[in-house]
């Protein structure tokens, strides 16, 4: 098992990598990497995502290509021309614009795939634990929402079937009423039932100490300092140094208050994850990818990251060293396979 915090770092690294390049070759590589990690690391019994990355790509890539192709009238390879009187759409439709749009769709798929894997591999319990102690209640709400989603999807399917056997056909918006009303009512009934069950299980019996007024006041001071510092940074160029100092003080106060508030929450954890060499390896993998993406390292052609099909479509260049760096995201799959072999 890899720590949930490491998985969060992995998903964020995927996000940064996908946002930092427009090279379709790197995008395809990232997509392959996230798919392999998903297949290897997400257990068969894991939480299902409502939409598979493949289906997402089937929608996102053509839609993004079409949207960009019809609205961005740039590029030299003209495919056809739409009448100028058409607002927004009128003008040249070029191959370059279509390719740029498709690449954007591909990047969105990579980001979606990364977070889909994160969602599948992280148990709800760990998601709750990712939230700071002070926001424990928020974490519980998040976990309930996550367990509610599959239940609601099942309810929706059941209700659609039940209404269909009464001769109901969905033709327009109003026809959703017989489906939405039972769905909402059953959702509310389930919420009330869950609330009752949680109370019966003692939820809320051990409440944390009430936050003293002093702590709440400190939070306000911290927020004011942060906001004031930011405004001063933006609008008072001569006060830049003091503004940054103010922002730092404000941030420190806020972090301190959150930490204090977390201490007041009475809560224990059943299973604490022990940091292992695998977690370290996965972090190093993410670090490698981030370094390749963000740092001006020698021997690497960072220009290949910023590929653009404009003004005339050319083949993107693939730098093997950057490609190797992106493979850092594959580490969770490698160590998971290694772990299985050990058993």
């Amino acid at each position, binding site marked *: 098992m890899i720590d949930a915090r490491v998985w969060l770092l992995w998903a964020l690294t995927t996000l940064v990598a996908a946002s930092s390049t427009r090279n379709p070759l790197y995008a395809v590589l990232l997509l392959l990497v996230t798919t392999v990690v998903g297949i290897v690391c997400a257990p068969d*019994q*894991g*939480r299902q995502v409502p939409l598979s990355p493949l289906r997402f790509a089937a929608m996102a890539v053509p839609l993004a290509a079409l949207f960009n192709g019809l609205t961005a009238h740039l590029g030299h390879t003209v495919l056809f021309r739409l009448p100028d009187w058409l607002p927004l759409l009128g003008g040249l439709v070029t191959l370059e614009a279509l390719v740029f749009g498709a690449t954007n769709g591909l990047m969105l798929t990579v980001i979606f795939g990364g977070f889909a894997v994160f969602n599948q591999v992280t*148990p*709800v*319990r760990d998601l*709750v634990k990712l939230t700071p102690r002070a926001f424990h209640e928020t974490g*519980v709400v998040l*976990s*309930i929402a*996550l*367990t509610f989603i*599959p*239940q609601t999807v099942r*309810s929706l399917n*059941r*209700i659609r*079937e*039940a*209404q*269909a*056997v*009464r*001769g*109901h*056909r969905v033709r327009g918006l109003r026809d959703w*009423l*017989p489906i939405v*009303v*039972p769905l909402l*009512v*059953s959702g509310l009934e*389930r919420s009330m*039932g*869950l*609330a*009752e*069950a*949680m*109370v*019966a*299980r*003692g*939820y*809320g*019996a*051990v409440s944390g100490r009430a936050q003293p007024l002093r702590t709440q006041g400190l939070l306000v001071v911290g927020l004011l300092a942060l906001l004031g510092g930011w405004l001063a940074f933006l609008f008072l160029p001569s006060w830049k140094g003091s503004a940054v100092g103010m922002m730092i003080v404000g941030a420190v106060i806020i972090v301190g208050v959150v930490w204090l508030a977390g201490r007041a929450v*009475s*809560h*224990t*954890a*059943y*299973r*604490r994850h022990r940091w292992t060499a695998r977690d370290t390896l996965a972090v190093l993998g993410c670090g490698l990818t981030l370094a390749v993406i963000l740092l001006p390292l020698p021997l690497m052609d960072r220009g290949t990251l910023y590929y653009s099909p404009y003004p005339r479509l050319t083949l993107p260049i693939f730098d093997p060293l950057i490609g190797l760096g992106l493979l850092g995201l594959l580490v969770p799959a490698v160590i998971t396979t290694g772990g299985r072999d050990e058993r």
Partner: protein
Amino acid sequence: MIHFDHLTYTYPDSSQPALADVTLHIAEGEFVLVAGPSGAGKSTLLRCLNGLVPHFTGGTLSGSVAVAGHDPVAEGPQVLSRLVGFVFQDPEAQFVLDRVEDEIAFALENGAIPPTEMRVRIEEVLNLLDLAPLRDRPLETLSGGEKQRVAIAAALAFRPRILVLDEPTSQLDPQSAEDVLRALVRLNCDRGLTIVLVEHRLERILPHADHLIYLPPPPIGGDSRGVLSGLPRHVLHQMNLTPPLVTLGKELGWKPLPFTVKEGHRFAAKSQILNPKPQVSEKQSVIRYSLFVIRNLHFAYDQEDILRGINLEVAPGELVALMGRNGSGKTTLLKCIVGLLRPQQGEITLESESLIKQETASICQSVGYLPQEPDDLLFADTVAEELVVTLRNHGLLDSPPIAPADLLARLGLSSLAASYPRDLSVGQRQRVALGAVTVTRPRLLLLDEPTRGLDYFAKRELVRLLREWQAEGVGVLLVTHDVELVAQAADRVVLLSQGEVFADGSPEMLTASPLFAPQVARLFPGTGWLTVEDALAGLNVEVEDAN
């Protein structure tokens, strides 16, 4: 251990008390069964034990409750959670997390129990409920019985002295219900845990119960009604609707009343059987099957064969019971019939007209389908409107095959025509849903587990309705686990296993099956009797002669 003293409780916005002047005592270590018709206040009584009533519900309460020296009304459910574990009807509705161990740990983590102590407690409940092999499993992959055992384990995590369960087996198939019940009996016998449990199928629980509490139906005039409480055999004598074995025992004056077939055998062995039911011959059972026919039906999902070459026929006015373990393909078959699932191979015809290519909406004009959750059908503001909506969907509003008012009268819902459907009892809601699918006057009726959560009275009403429809020539295909219902109502039984029909014959066929035989059949093997009426008819001659 538990004392109710003249407790009266009224829900907010209600004029009638849900519990009126209840006085009773429960001793430590007892296995208590709470029985009574829907709406009698059974769940309310349970919720008084941990303070959910009135803390969660509001309302007015007079009198007092004491639970192990604590006052749930004064201390509230959160405090009482350490003393009273509570398990609800639907296990899924009470889960917060998604894995077995995490779900059990949830309450302990929130109760700030130290991790070492927590580990001990979790191991303890996992072992008690045979859940250790499932500890890492996602909850959604568990069977209904396993989920309910997880819910019980979660309720026991605080090591309460009392375990309260509100119809814990009503959503389960017989095998899963048996697993849950076995776990409860072990907790009661080995651990001395006091168990208070509401259940409609008394025959499941009676053999284990030390104490029976019967809450009579709510009075019409609003007079106070007495709660019957005491030894099960004493209380059962004063109850009208009881399990078949007990009813037979009461009719024949057997003392003490038998709760198990083994106990009943002592009396049955002394009875002289004078009038055994003639066996239905093969020739008799082969009658004009012309209404509904399924031929060689195959359905696969995700490359897994769910239905493999099903052949089935239903005659006009015939009630065919479709039985089999969970996952045998019963519900899938019903869904294929109404077009919610599309079979890969085979033919389905109703009065020689193929249903295979038709849309669900068009099939359901002549085939009424009542799914497992009748609530999914209900969304209108009034009971009468539910029927009108179906007519409108089918374009039959101007010329309804049956007037909605007439159908409501037949369903016994005339007085509730203006009521909001979701405010009604389980049995009434089910009848509204039945009305919503039969207002088109279908020629075939498909019912999926229609007696889940129904009390004996509601079940009797359902059988009456089905008989009326049968008399009009409507064919009925009934999916159920309820062997007593099948014994009472079915003309023929079809047994399904792994997507195949492995037996098809008269209900007497059930007497040979240890899994499906009703109580009377097990009591008088070889007679062909299935119901109390059969047995009384067969034994009456002897009683009359004796007189």
